[in-house]
């Protein structure tokens, strides 16, 4: 373990602190498990944004301060008064005990506990959270964990995750709460945003399951998580339950598929480093030594996407046009090969993919030629 840590620190560069993996990054990683480049860079805690900048293909990512302020203000509002509003929503949607009342005496099942989770460093906070969860499971009361820290093993290195909140119900269930500032209008929110929130929440639920697994008996973790959003055009919170069973199993499987970082690191040439202080040419070489699996979806999820896209285009990979394109072309993966096969200058005519391509090319040429003259049909 220490040898791996040593190795990852070398990859990152001597003076660079590790960038923590968050749930968003994990969800993105799980969406493209075949990408060794992303697995290694994220695992080693390399600042991909700075790396992309150093490579000359900076990412366009960033957060508007308006969104940031709004998000924080909304979360603070939801958690105000010892989380009274938040717990009311949890109780209304998921039950699991009597209606929570802040200020009820200890021992009353309606009482609300909000343990202090402060500790030094992520490891300390994760340990503190695990302890608080263990205590909470025995009390048969409501417990609200505000920004707990959960540890999750990702491809052999620990990732520390910070959900917005975790609630322990008096009946012993654990629930992940995700607070987002996009609105829920007439009970419906933007599908893409809800989807990414669900994938994120699934990562938290997975980490929570690992913590629960260390207890005996293991407390049940709700596979239904609570999404809290502003209602309509107001600042009032409203909530909806998301069933993340599917996302949970997908994430679990994809994270399991991630090639172990050690193996990727071992395959690198001696002395490889992603230290952004190094010259661009050396960095490019280092990045190129780890294979990537670029697809257009990366543009929305990975800081290195523009760099990988240039490479993929330079190599004439058809996947640069979309994963579905790759699917219908069979064994042909390069633009040049596909076009040669379509024009009949290469490829085996008995290959169904080649035959379909020739037919398509013939029909397209015929239609374009016909349109030049009079329009048929």
């Amino acid at each position: 373990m220490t040898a791996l840590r040593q190795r990852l620190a070398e990859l990152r560069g001597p003076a660079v602190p590790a960038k923590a993996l968050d749930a968003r990054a994990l969800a993105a990683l799980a969406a493209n498990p075949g990408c060794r480049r992303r697995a290694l860079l994220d695992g080693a805690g390399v600042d991909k944004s700075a790396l992309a900048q150093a490579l000359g293909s900076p990412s366009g990512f960033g957060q508007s301060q308006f969104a940031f302020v709004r998000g924080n203000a909304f979360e603070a509002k939801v958690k105000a008064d010892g989380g009274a509003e938040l717990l009311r929503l949890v109780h209304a949607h998921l039950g699991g005990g009597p209606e929570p009342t802040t200020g009820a005496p200890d021992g009353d099942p309606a009482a609300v506990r909000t343990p202090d989770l402060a500790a030094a460093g992520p490891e300390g906070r994760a340990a503190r959270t695990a302890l608080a969860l263990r205590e909470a499971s025995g009390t048969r009361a409501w417990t609200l964990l505000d920004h707990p820290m959960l540890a999750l093993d990702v491809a052999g290195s620990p990732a520390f995750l910070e959900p917005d909140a975790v609630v322990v119900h008096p009946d012993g269930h654990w629930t992940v709460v995700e607070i987002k500032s996009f609105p829920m209008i007439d009970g419906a929110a933007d599908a893409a945003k809800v989807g990414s929130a669900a994938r994120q929440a699934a990562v938290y639920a997975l980490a929570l399951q690992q913590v629960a697994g260390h207890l005996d008996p293991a407390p049940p973790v709700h596979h239904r998580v609570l999404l809290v959003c502003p209602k309509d055009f107001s600042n009032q919170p409203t909530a909806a339950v998301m069933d993340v069973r599917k996302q949970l199993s997908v994430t679990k499987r994809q994270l399991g598929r991630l090639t172990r970082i050690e193996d990727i690191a071992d395959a690198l040439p001696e002395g490889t480093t992603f230290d952004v202080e190094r010259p661009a040419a050396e960095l490019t070489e280092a990045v190129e030594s780890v294979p990537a699996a670029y697809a257009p979806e990366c543009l929305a999820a990975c800081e290195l996407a523009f760099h990988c896209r240039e490479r993929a285009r330079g190599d004439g990979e058809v996947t640069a046009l979309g994963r579905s394109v790759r699917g219908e072309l069979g064994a042909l993966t390069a633009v040049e090969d596909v076009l040669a096969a379509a024009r009949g200058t290469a490829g085996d005519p008995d290959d169904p993919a080649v035959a379909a391509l020739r037919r398509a090319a013939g029909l397209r040429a015929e239609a374009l030629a016909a349109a030049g003259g009079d329009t048929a049909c």
Partner: protein
Amino acid sequence: MSLIHTLARLEAVESGRAQPLAMVRHRHLAARPLVFVPLTTAGEAGAPLGALVGSDRERPRLLVVPQPRDRDLRFAFLADLAEEVLPYVDSFAEDTEPAEQSKTDPETGKRVKVEVELCADAPQLIVPSRAGVDFVRLLGRSMRFRRTAEQDPDTPYPAPARVPLLGRWLTHFAERARVPGSTLIAAMTELLARHWATGQSSLEDQHLGALLAWIDPPGGDAGAEAARRAETARDAGGQLLCPPAGPATDPAFDNKLLAPAIERYDRARTALAAADDGPSADHRLAELTAAEREIGALVESRTRPTWDAVWHGLDLLNDLPEGERAAERWTRDRWSYTGHRDRVLAGEPPQPRRDDAVTAANKLAARETAQARLEAQEALDDPLVMAARRLSGEAFAGEVTEVVMAYSESKRPSPRPLVTLRTDDGPHLAERAKVYRSLAGKPQSAQFVGYDEEGGVVLRIMDKMGRGKEPDEGSVPEKGDQVTWTLFEHAPRGGPSLPEPEDTPWTHGGPPGTGAEAPDPVTSEDTL
């Protein structure tokens, strides 16, 4: 995406230029569209930051909300927007032509024809991208339940007079956007992507600047290079040279330019409110005006490139001849516009938050029919689209090699000629499958009989040959003719009609409630 489409993309990669996906324009474009380029504030639900709007390419109207969190300023913006949009929408209401519509007679329950008005033309809203259509829907939702002081004197924050009406129209436009082939409102990226295949993925095609860079690269550069510049190139101050088409803004713009400008505006406003004498108030008012103007200039600098790009896109699309059947779909848009005009005139309440069961089912059925109709019409209008259908076995073309006269076995025998076609296509013909061809714009149907010894397709023509014993002149293909047959219907119709909303069975929630829905409850922190 069909293989032909993929092939076009690959050709675009190779040539560095977008390749045609259509030989004609499959969407009707109005002679005088209203272009709307909105910007929104990050993190806020439907808090507009500003917009460029208008139907005069040279003189767009700039609307700005200097402090998007201020309700009064937002209302002022929406009132100004109503002033631009509603006169445009209304300008099509007067010019009508008589038309017939079949309606159910409430007394006899029979379908009867009634004479109604149909507007001769309809408004057309053009937004830069799909997100723009969603923003129009959001604005519509945020406005249509608002109450004006005239409607309800007790309402805590009365909306300006025409704002609820604008909300209803924007809602109608956004709802219509869900009907395939409709262009009452259209997103420029979707219009362009329908007609050209670029050498990038469909995900990247959602960037209007990058899409245009492939179709019409400035200075004849390679498309990929021009598109990359449009996506990522920044000036010395770190700002994108080609700002995103909105409504979302670039975070770098928000953080470096907009936030300080809004802060200056807020400071100037506080200072003005605190001013205690005339001269200092004058001075501070000047500062406030300057701060406001600065935000206006910022908003214009981010929307003007998109505005120009949208008009550029319209130019490119107008260069294509309009598809023959696009006019038929536009007529349906005119019906839609006329229908909503009538509902507004009749004083009906705004569209409900959620449709009742019958309305929702009707909408879905109508959209499915529209989708099938659109696919059929595009194929008939365009050999390139037909080629994709031929590739997938849904149509076939070939030369007629033999025509044998035959007759039906009824008392009055009618002509049922057998036509043999030599084709290289591989249609998926089931036994006795029905196929169609276009005969002077009308579909003629035939039945698949079988294959002859040489693999030719034998068809029996079934109709459109006149009433006599001999088929009408030109109604039966002759030897040597090139004919295209389709396995899909040319004018697909929807399923059986649904009950009236009042007759909704209890299994589907029963009849919907009547009357207008209550406005959203107002809180002091409302964003809209």
